[in-house]
C-alpha cells in the first residue's frame, strides 16, 4: 500500500518529444510540498489532542514529535534540521502541557543522533527502522521520566510512559505510511523539475 506516482522516465519521453512541454513544477509548488510533512505533523498533533473516548489515546498519546523526527531525519535530513526539531518540540511542549523544553531538548538531541547514524537505516528495510524505534523510544522515555520526576519533585511511576511508548510503536507504521506518501510526492516533484532543467 505504498503511494505510487508516475515514473520520471515517462515524463522524460514527454518532455523531450514535445517541443512546447512545460518546464516542470514551479519552485513554489516544490517548496509547498516540502512544507507538507510539517502540516501533516500539525494535523496529527491536533488529532492526538482530541478528547477521544479511548482512554489510552488521551492518557498516553503517541509521541508524534518523535515519530516525525525519526522518519524525516532518516529519509530527508534537510527537512528536519536540529533547530527545526527543537522548534517542533517547543510547539509540543506548549500545546501538551509538558515541562517547557522537555520535548524540544529530546527531539533536538534525537535529530543530531539520528543524522549521525543515518547510513545504518538507509541500507536497511522499513522493518529494521521499526525494530530500532523501540530502542530510540526507550532513551527518549527515560529522559522524559527523569524530567517529569524533576518537575514533580518525586520519582513518578514509569508505567504511563511505557504505555505511551507502546502506543507510539504500534501507531508508527500508519504514520510512516502517511509520511512516505509525502516523501514520494516531494521526490517526484524534484525529479520532474530536474528532468525539465529547472533545478
Amino acid at each position, binding site marked *: 500500500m505504498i503511494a505510487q506516482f508516475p515514473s520520471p522516465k515517462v515524463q522524460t519521453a514527454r518532455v523531450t518529444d514535445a517541443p512546447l512541454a512545460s518546464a516542470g513544477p514551479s519552485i513554489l509548488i516544490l517548496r509547498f510540498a516540502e512544507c507538507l510533512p510539517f502540516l501533516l505533523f*500539525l494535523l496529527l498533533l*491536533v*488529532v492526538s*489532542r*482530541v*478528547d*477521544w*473516548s479511548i*482512554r489510552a489515546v*488521551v*492518557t*498516553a*498519546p503517541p509521541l508524534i514529535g518523535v515519530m516525525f523526527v525519526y522518519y524525516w531525519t532518516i529519509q530527508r535530513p534537510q527537512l528536519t534540521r*536540529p*533547530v527545526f526539531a*527543537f522548534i517542533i*518540540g517547543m*510547539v509540543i511542549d*506548549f*500545546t*501538551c*502541557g*509538558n*515541562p*517547557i*523544553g*522537555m520535548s*524540544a*531538548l529530546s527531539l*533536538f*538531541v534525537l535529530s*543530531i543522533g539520528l543524522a549521525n547514524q543515518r547510513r545504518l537505516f538507509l541500507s536497511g528495510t522499513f522493518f529494521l527502522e521499526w525494530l530500532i524505534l523501540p530502542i530510540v523510544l526507550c532513551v527518549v522515555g527515560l529522559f522524559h521520566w527523569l*524530567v*517529569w520526576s*524533576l*518537575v*514533580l519533585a518525586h520519582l*513518578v511511576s514509569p508505567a*504511563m*510512559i511505557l*504505555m*505511551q511508548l507502546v502506543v507510539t510503536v504500534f501507531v508508527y507504521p500508519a504514520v510512516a505510511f502517511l509520511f512516505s506518501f509525502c516523501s514520494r510526492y516531494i521526490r517526484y516533484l524534484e525529479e520532474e523539475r530536474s528532468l525539465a532543467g529547472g533545478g
Partner: protein
Amino acid sequence: MGDPTGYRRQKDIGRIIRIIRHSCLVFIFLLGVALIVLSRVQPELVSGVRGWAASAAAPLLRAAELPVRAAERTIYSIGRYFYVHSRNKKLRRENEELEVWRRTAERLALENRRLRGLVNATDRRAELVATARVIGSGGGPFVRAVLVDAGSEQGVTDKMAVVDQNGIVGRIVDTGPTASRLLLVTDFASRIPVRTASRDINAILAGQNDRRPRLMFLPINEIVRPGERLLTSGQGGVFPPDYPVGQVVKVEGRIIEVELYANLDRLDFISILNLPDDQNGAPTGLSNVRSERSPEPVSPDAENGPNGTP
C-alpha cells in the same frame, strides 16, 4: 597548488563556520536545559504562552472533534436503542422519586434563606463566569488537563473553579484569549480543601494522576468510612463552599480513596465559577443556573434586603 593562500582562507572560513555551527548547537542545548529548569522553578512564567497556544489550537480542535463526536454519538445511539424500554421505565420511577426530593429541597431552601436572613449570614455563593465546552485533551501521561473553549475574552482568569452538573471538576490554570487549560481534580498538582458532609471533618483532596484522588491531612484521631460524602470547604478562596465533590470508597490504613461525582472521562459542558473577594456579593449567574435545576419558589430580593436581611 595553484593558490595556497586562497585555499588556506577557504579552509579557515570553513573552520569558522563549523565552530559557529557547533556553538549554536551547544547554545540550543543549554537553552533547552535552562527552559526545563525554568518550568520547574517559575512555572507561572510560561502560563501565558500556554494559554495562547491553547487559543491557537482551539479552532483546529473544534474542527477535528466533529467527526469523532459524530461517530461517538452514532455508536451511543445504536447501543441505547436496545435498552430504550427498560430505560424508560427506570427513568419514570426515578422521576417520581426526584419530584419528592425537589419539593423537600424547595422547602429547605426557603427555610435556609429565612434562617440566614435572621442571623445576617454572609453569602459565599460563586458567580458563573462562563459556560464552556471541553474541546480537547490538554495533558499527557503526567498531566490530567483538558482544553475548554472559554478564555479571557469571556472573563475567565487563572485559578477559577470549574464544576459540572455532578460536582467539582478542577480549576483553570492557563488562560488564553479564547481558550483555557483546565487542570482536573485528578492531576497530581491538584489540592482541594474539602470537608465531610456528615461530621464536618476538614481534609485535603489530593490528585494522584489516576481516577481516584486521595484524602489527606485529616485531623488526628478522626476516622472516615467508606460511603462518607465530601463537599468543598471553601477554604483557600478558589472553590465555593458546599459543592459536591465525591464519596469515600476505599479506606486502607492511611490511604483513603475518593470516587468523584463528576465523570471526568466524559466531560462536555462545564461551568467556570468565580468566588468574589468580598464574599458578600449577591449571587448572580450561578443562582440562575441553580434555579433552572431546582426552581426556588421565592426570590431572595422579594423577601429579604440587599444583604439577605429581612
